[in-house]
């Protein structure tokens, strides 16, 4: 052993006590360790809260998307689902669950629990918290606040507006502001950008007309007949449900109503084709595109 080694001259205890005395080494304060433990638990709590918010917003997004009329806005179910799933919030939730588990594992006794238990408890807590928040309508509020405060953040309201304020693609969002002289065929409608439209309502069902006449914000499905003159042919009216609770039953009813409408349009089309064929053989000069119902030809109905 090296002769110069101080351990050789004194035993370990004496060396340590001398060192503690000479360097005035003191135990770190209890507050330091308590503070650290509290910080870890605070981080855990924050992770669970953010995770719960992510769940609340995800639940809100998932339960408020228009599964019943996805053909109205998307080519197929797959493209619809790609847009529906709140990926960003799912990623946030995953990160928060990981962070919460990491924090628990680093508490004094966290190592005693298996990673599965810790992860499961964080996920369950976030889900419970998220469901409670969504129960009180906070999912919508948080999403809307984030959308208002952050221009980059696409809240569900912004996405829905973007999807439905597309006159060129046959979708409008807004409310009826006035009836015309020919109330049974045309009404005045103001979209969310403030533009006024003449809406042709001849092909609407009575229930649609009633909904439109309520003056509440609604979504119109149809076809723009003249963009310059702002003439829109309405084929369906759907309520604007972004800011209120929608049950699965209501969504199912909306789906049935939409499918019923499509069938009716198809029957009308078949009838029109038969009439056209009769006309064709009777008088070829009478063939006119306008004799075909507009709604039967719009993309959403064809899908």
């Amino acid at each position, binding site marked *: 052993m*090296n002769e110069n080694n101080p351990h050789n001259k004194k035993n*370990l205890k004496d060396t340590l006590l001398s060192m503690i005395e000479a360097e005035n080494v003191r135990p770190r304060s209890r507050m330091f360790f308590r503070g650290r433990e509290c910080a870890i638990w605070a981080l855990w709590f924050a992770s669970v809260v953010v995770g719960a918010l992510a769940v609340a917003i995800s639940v809100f997004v998932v339960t408020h998307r228009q599964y019943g009329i996805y053909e109205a806005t998307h080519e197929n179910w797959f493209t619809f689902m790609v847009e529906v799933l709140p990926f960003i919030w799912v990623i946030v939730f995953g990160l928060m669950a990981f962070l919460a588990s990491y924090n628990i594992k680093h508490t004094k*006794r966290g190592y005693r629990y298996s990673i599965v238990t810790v992860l499961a408890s964080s996920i369950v807590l976030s889900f419970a918290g998220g469901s409670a928040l969504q129960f009180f309508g906070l999912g919508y509020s948080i999403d809307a606040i984030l959308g208002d405060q952050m221009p980059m953040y696409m809240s569900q309201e912004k996405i829905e507006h973007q999807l439905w304020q597309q006159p060129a693609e046959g979708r409008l969002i807004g409310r009826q502001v006035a009836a015309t002289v020919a109330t049974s065929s045309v009404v005045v409608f103001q979209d969310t950008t403030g533009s006024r439209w003449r809406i042709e309502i001849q092909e609407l069902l009575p229930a649609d007309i009633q909904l439109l006449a309520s003056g509440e914000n609604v979504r119109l499905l149809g076809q723009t007949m003249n963009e310059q003159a702002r003439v829109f042919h309405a084929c369906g009216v759907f309520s604007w449900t972004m800011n209120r609770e929608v049950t699965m039953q209501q969504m199912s009813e909306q789906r049935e109503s939409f499918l019923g409408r499509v069938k009716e349009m198809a029957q009308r089309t078949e009838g029109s084709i038969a009439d056209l064929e009769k006309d064709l053989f009777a008088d070829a000069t009478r063939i006119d595109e306008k004799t075909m119902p507009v709604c039967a030809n719009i993309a959403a109905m064809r899908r």
Partner: protein
Amino acid sequence: MHSMRNRCFILLGFVPVFRYPQDMKLASPPDLNDEEIVAKTLVDKQFFGEIVDRYEAKLKRYVARLGVRNPEDQLDVLQDVFLKVYKNLNAFDSSLQFSSWIYRITHNEAISWYRKKNVRPEGHLIADSEELIGFLSAKEDTQDQDFDKTVNATEVNAALLKIEAKYREVIILRFFEHKEYDEISDILKIPVGSVGTLLHRGKKQLANELNSEAIRM
């Protein structure tokens, strides 16, 4: 025995505060448990010497088993361990056993030592022949490996060095440091269930190593 000065103080009604000079041996408190010594150390640092006395030999052996073979290195590691223990005395959770806590610090310091020195724990004897015989004849609930009792200490040591570190650490604590499952859980900061799993797998890997050695021979 009270000194003359202390006797005078007592006669005057003062109770003298007893100080332990550096060179005076601290009256050994064998009736005090580790946790009580820790509490006393926080009031008077001289009590820390008792902790060093109690654990120096055990931890030196443990550090050696973890792969710090050189006696000077062992002392360096132990010095760091005890200083860390002293600085972090307030972090000691009295719901744990003090021995588990100090073993945990030692384990972490030994691992840090390898990393600092950039070396692997090898070429050391984990246990002597007597301990190995005890290990080979130990019957654990989870044990289903039967070892050939004729294997010698060198072979077992060599095999122990070949198995994965996570298994070796648990085997060392269980069979050579004679720690209970919950103590190993506290030392290695893993769930108690994982201790059983690691032990089971470790013994299996060790048996494979010993059998492959036997085949080679």
